[in-house]
């Protein structure tokens, strides 16, 4: 089953490769991954879309938590969350197709952000179904290039963290 996991991590070199290395090294699946700094410049927020059965997802969450650069892990499937993805689509737009391209963009409330005599670049944001749908409709015109952000997601209300690590305790010995 697909899970969207939100990971708060240190914004420092190497942190991203620790997460990426975890997924490749342990054979976990990454559907998409996106990361950018937060309001606190020392912290980044990452959204990982992955899939696996319950046992695998439990391991992924625990393994992410175990990474020292990772501060917090939330499985957004556990709660109500909204997710979005953006895509930039450069589509062939010869004179006879230009109107059709604009019409499709309009239906999806997408923006044309660049144009040339033979092409339009369309920016679209939405859930995965919406992105798939616009791509399907634009395909007959001829898609030259497509770039997608991968999904980002946010919880609708405060959620329980899956952090198994609690407050620091002195080692007794």
């Amino acid at each position, binding site marked *: 089953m697909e899970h969207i996991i939100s990971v708060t991590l240190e914004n420092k070199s190497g942190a991203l*490769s620790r997460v990426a290395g975890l997924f490749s090294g342990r054979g976990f699946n990454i559907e998409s991954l996106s990361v950018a700094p937060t309001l606190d410049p020392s912290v980044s927020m990452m959204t990982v879309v992955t899939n696996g059965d319950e046992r695998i997802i439990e391991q992924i969450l625990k393994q992410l938590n175990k990474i*020292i650069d990772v501060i917090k892990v939330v499985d957004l499937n556990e709660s109500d969350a909204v997710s979005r993805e953006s895509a930039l689509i450069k589509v062939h737009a010869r004179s006879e197709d230009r109107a059709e391209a604009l019409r499709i963009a309009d239906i999806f409330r997408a923006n044309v952000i660049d144009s040339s005599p033979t092409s339009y670049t369309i920016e679209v944001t939405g859930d995965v179904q919406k992105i798939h749908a616009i791509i399907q409709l634009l395909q007959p015109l001829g898609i030259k290039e497509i770039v997608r952000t991968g999904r980002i997601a946010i919880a609708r209300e405060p959620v329980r963290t899956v952090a198994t690590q609690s407050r620091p305790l002195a080692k007794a010995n």
Partner: protein
Amino acid sequence: MAQLTGAEIFVEALKREGVKTIFALPGGVVLKIFDVLHQQKDIEVILTRHEQAAGHMAEGYAKATGKPGVALITSGPGMTNVVTALADAYMDSVPMVCFSGQVPTALIGNDAFQEADNIGLSRPCTKYNFLVKDVNDLAQTIKEAFYIASTGRPGPVLVDIPKDISMEKAEFKYPDSVSIRGYNPTYEGSKWKIKQAADAIMKARRPVIYIGGGVQLSGASAEVRELAEMTQIPVNQTLMALGAFPGQHPLSLGMLGMHGTYVANMAIHYSDLVVAIGARFDDRVTGKVSEFCPSAKIIHIDIDPTSIRKNIHVDVPIVGDCKCVLQELNNVLRATVNGDQKELRKPWWDQLTEWKTAHPLSYRQEPDQLIKPQYLIDRIYQLTKDRDPVVSTDVGQHQMWAAQYFHLTKPNTWLTSGGLGTMGFGFPAALGAQAAYRDRLVLCIAGDGSVQMNTQELATAVIEKLPVKVFIINNRFHGMVRQWQDLFYEGRYACSYLDQSPDFVKLAEAYGAAGLRVQKVSEVDDGIREAMAIDKPVFIDVPVYQFENCYPMIPAGGCNHEMILEDPPELQKRQGATGKAESKDTILTA
């Protein structure tokens, strides 16, 4: 405040961490650090002949003392050489801090001379790693490195120090404490879960305790013993837990798993409750996962949440330190246990005793035939046990026989490579332990194949006066490989026969160590005594019967109650046909 160079900060920081010994091999980018080390007396620097060995020595030091071992190596090839030891330490949760030299900051990424991506190379095989980019961060980084290596689930940490950082100056301030927001290991277990565990223990009729390396790491031997004695539950040990519970204790069933005892494997298979303490349900232990302990409830105490439910479903997970959790569990049980536990457990113990007597570990030694490896190890054990030795091993059949026949009684006396199974580990690990305890008896049970992966350390042993006693179980084979070929590849010995080993006696002597050879059963005891009396490192070469196989054995992916207990008939027949003859063999006929 006085300004110190990075190299001086390094040395001061190590002193603050109480480091007494480091294992090191120099190179261009770490010369400044070596220069400072050379001019002080508090930290002993042991020069090794290979960085892999420096790493294993640090591991041996750490396993024997419980404190982080320290290695210092150079960039590029120094780093790539130490990777095996880092990976080994990572698999076996050995606390270790490795310092690597790096090309100057300005050259990083330029394919500079002897540059390697030390951070990239070590990322998958360390608990954490640091590249120091500013000399002002060096002291703090070293503090964090030792903290991470030795707390929670211990492991190796790498600190990569570019050359310019070791030369630049900064004020030296050593932090008193560390706090890392993404790293807060849990030591205390949930009281509620502990209560559940106690209830399950009270209800169980066929319980077993299954202890692992976590008991050594947590120093929880006394607590395990109290738990077992109070409840009269039998104790199984993993390869990594040997010594953490006395091997000869009446409640001990010995090692479980692929080459564990018959009774240990039968007990866990037919149990109705498994109390796993600091063990990680490795595939060498579980065998076929789907048929592991079919009727048991499982309690799992582990400090690392990822170990819990990684391979096996757990009914009562308890995240925490073995020692803390067991203290609490024992408190709860002490208040609940009533009645004579011996009496209560009698039916279970009757069954266990039956299994124990049905198939005890056994071997046959004819007095006039070649020495059997088990006999040799048994004799070493009998003749040295009163001296409370530290015992290291290499990897292979000899390792398993050492696990079966050397009944250690104290924690931190058993140095073996379990998770990675690194041939060549034994000798340097023994040297590391001997460096920590100069007056203790340190033994290495080595294989003729494995030992050749690090014999260059004879030089280190001699110069540093580390009088370890290395018994080479010389079967002229990669014996463990040969055993699999005999059992699963119809006896085709692809690359398992070792027909050109050096004369180990002469090899030792060439380095200025002592060499002995023991050839006959009647010479074994005297040979062992003679070796013990030599105040130098000794290689004792013992040609043994070549075709001995290690049993019991659960074939990989097999089920725990289905053990092979002796050479199967087709193998006996095949070997009978070739007369089970020794291979063309020069050493033996001497």
